[in-house]
């Protein structure tokens, strides 16, 4: 009784406080929406975005979406951390969004619980542009039990992102040739260690992908899954992985691999290379301007070369590239404006609109040289740096060309991006399940198994765990969800092949 009474009492108190503050808020919202200039027949849509470092309600590209499609849009954003938890809370409380942009696990999670609206009928009715823009292969990734639950966004096409770089000036000084396989790499690292007394090779522990790469590929470890006689086997269950770890452990034990690898962040690795403490590391092209400019500022005579992708025992090189659907644009079941949401998605993919959203206006934001799009700076950066974040599905035929303008805004960036792609030409392998629809067993277990894998790999490399314990790792991995995940992947793989 007392409890109820006091709750009521406080409720009244709060209501006053809240209405005061809440009133303020709604005023603000009204103000911002009227400024984005909506037309009478097109309602304001609410869209939930992934975290990004800007306020879409103030952004040029976001305003361009409204201007070009006629829909005023109010954006909210998921946080950078705990995004999945937050998304769940928003959805179970039916926060009235008309559109959401989701990652693959989020997409599966919501679609499988019935929180998303199937879009087949509406795409048929309003989605002429959508149907031309998205390829048949991509649609597969957005289907669950045969129904389309979202517009898949594949990004800028299949591309490699990382390659080993080496201090060419040191190689020249020591009379060393560019290594082409892991044996030659060992010799080069050993010589650098003896003669220069620097860290020959550095790397970070941040993710499985930061431990794998050129060297692992030379041992045959590239994709997550490997087809062995029609059955998918995870990379950790292949003998190649063990060979790779043994090699890395040898490098580590002999001081050829940074002793602090288990501590290094990606930024730390770049720092060691940039200040001349390390001779080699795996550079991502999008970090190239940062890393290379910093090195040049410290050592103006330094020269950096890409190490061509290393060859395996048979003399063949391979390189892994991520592919498949990155994002999904979805409509929640309880959305207020489902038709309008799909109409908006369609309007954004109208070819001219899409082009302007991707690279702005010709002569203002971009120019065309030799049939290639080049950004006009600084206007391009000022207005369009968030353009790709605001995409909801892309024109899959043209987007890789448009997108390339983004790497042409800096000569170093462009050089490293293009040279890496050139080195990788013909060598790229992609994952056998890259184009699968979200597989529940994989979505559920992937993240914690990746953490488990990176931890064990670091421990094997650093010698904290001897490689004789490798079976213990595989067993734990299987127990923690690996078996479940392998089964799920194989079920899809077999059904897709038949």
């Amino acid at each position, binding site marked *: 009784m007392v*409890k109820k009474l*006091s709750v009521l009492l406080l409720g009244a108190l709060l209501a006053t406080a809240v209405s005061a503050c809440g009133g303020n808020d709604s005023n603000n919202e009204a103000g911002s929406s009227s400024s984005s200039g909506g037309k009478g027949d097109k309602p304001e849509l609410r869209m939930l975005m992934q975290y990004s470092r800007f306020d879409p309600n103030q952004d040029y590209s976001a305003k361009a979406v409204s201007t070009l499609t006629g829909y005023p849009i109010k954006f909210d954003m998921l946080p950078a951390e705990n995004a999945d938890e937050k998304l769940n809370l928003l959805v*179970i409380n039916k926060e009235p969004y008309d559109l959401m942009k989701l990652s693959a696990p989020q997409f599966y999670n919501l679609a499988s619980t019935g929180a998303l609206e199937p879009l087949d009928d509406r795409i048929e009715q309003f989605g002429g542009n959508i149907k031309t823009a998205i390829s048949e292969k991509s649609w597969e990734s957005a289907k669950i039990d045969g129904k389309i639950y979202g517009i898949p966004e594949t990004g800028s096409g299949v591309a490699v992102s990382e390659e080993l770089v080496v201090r060419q000036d040191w190689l020249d000084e020591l009379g060393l040739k560019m290594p082409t396989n892991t044996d030659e790499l060992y010799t080069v690292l050993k010589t650098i260690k003896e003669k220069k007394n620097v860290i020959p090779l550095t790397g970070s522990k941040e993710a499985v992908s930061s431990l794998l790469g050129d060297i692992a590929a030379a041992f045959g470890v590239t994709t997550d899954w490997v087809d062995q006689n029609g059955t998918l086997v995870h990379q950790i269950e292949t003998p190649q992985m063990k060979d790779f770890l043994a090699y890395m452990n040898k490098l580590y034990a002999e001081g050829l691999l940074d002793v*602090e690898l288990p*501590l290094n962040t990606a930024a730390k690795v770049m720092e060691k290379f940039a200040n001349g403490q390390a001779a080699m590391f795996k550079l991502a092209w999008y970090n190239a301007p940062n890393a290379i400019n910093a090195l040049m500022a410290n050592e103006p005579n330094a020269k950096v070369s890409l190490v061509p992708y290393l060859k395996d025992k048979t003399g063949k090189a391979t390189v892994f590239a991520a592919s498949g659907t990155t994002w999904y644009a979805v409509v929640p079941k309880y959305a207020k404006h489902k038709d309008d949401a799909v109409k908006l998605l369609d309007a954004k993919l109208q070819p001219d609109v899409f082009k302007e959203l991707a690279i702005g206006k010709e002569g203002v934001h971009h120019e065309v040289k030799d049939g290639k799009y080049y950004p006009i700076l600084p206007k391009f950066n000022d207005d369009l740096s968030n353009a790709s974040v605001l995409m909801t599905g892309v024109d899959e035929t043209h987007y890789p060309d448009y997108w390339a303008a983004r790497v042409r805004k800096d000569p170093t960036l462009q050089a490293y991006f293009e040279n890496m792609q050139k080195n990788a030409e013909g060598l790229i392998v992609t994952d056998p399940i890259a184009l699968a629809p979200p597989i529940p067993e994989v979505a559920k277990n992937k993240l*914690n198994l990746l*953490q488990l894998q990176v931890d064990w790999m*670091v421990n094997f490399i650093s010698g904290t765990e001897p490689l004789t314990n490798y079976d213990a790792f595989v067993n734990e991995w299987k127990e923690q969800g690996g078996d479940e995940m392998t089964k799920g992947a194989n079920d899809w793989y077999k059904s897709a092949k038949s």
Partner: protein
Amino acid sequence: MASRNRNSAASAPARRSNRGRIRADWDLYLLLVPGIAVLLLFKYVPMYGILIAFQDFRIFDGMSGSEWVGLDNFRRLFTSDDFLHVFVNTIAISLLKLVFLFPLPIVAAILLNELKNMAFRKSVQTVVYLPHFLSWIIVSGLFIDLLSINGGLVNKLLSQLGADPIPFFLSNDYFRGVLVATAGWKETGWSTIVYLAAFSTIDPGLYEAAKIDGASRLRQIWHITLPGIAPIIVLMLILRLGSIFAGDTEQILAMYNSTVYKSADIIGTYVYRMGLGKQEYSFTTAVGLFESVIGFALIIGGNYLSRKYLRRGIW
């Protein structure tokens, strides 16, 4: 402390004669209403969520649609292979911190209090609490640099002295020490504040008298300063007991790496890693409940012991 007790003892008879004391003190109860209302509304109304620990909670089905599983989640925690080892780590690290870091702010506050140059003292006070405002991620980066074996300051000094470099962050022998030392560096200054405030209640006349008596600084500290802040020390200690079991997950997540899991993986970090991407609401709630129950028992036990032996407590 003694003089205060005497005061209250003197006023006791007057109070006892006050018969309708609840009615007389109606305004005292009125003061409690808003606080209790906020507490009930924001803390106790959602308390039913604890029951999730006994369910296999699926968020889209809600609590009514989720299955009851009894103690399954607790069984899973206690029977997990790593439980014993992370349990031991949790307690070991917490006890180390309690023993080394609980007295540190008290000592620091007393020493600060002995600084007679006010300008210096105020600047020092302001400066020592700065690290509290740095996030663990930043602090971690700082100490990784400082203790690095590739040119970190500490290892440079060690090699000057002819010692072998120590990989502090990679060694199960040293890593717990690193955790305790960095926590001390980050929080000691901040933790002095509550003691510094308590000094203001001490009668400066007592120090005057003691000086005239010829008591040394140490004796003054022991016989005036410490008794003066004893109540707040006891309060802090009892509350600290409650969090022994919770550990400092945020710090360890920011600082550890897989090579030191053996010595530094605690319940919080272990549950975090195992639950990555899995949304295991029930299991994490169960683990939290387990920690809370022990923490609450420790507070009640601590208060009981404190009442019994120090004759003061929270209630």
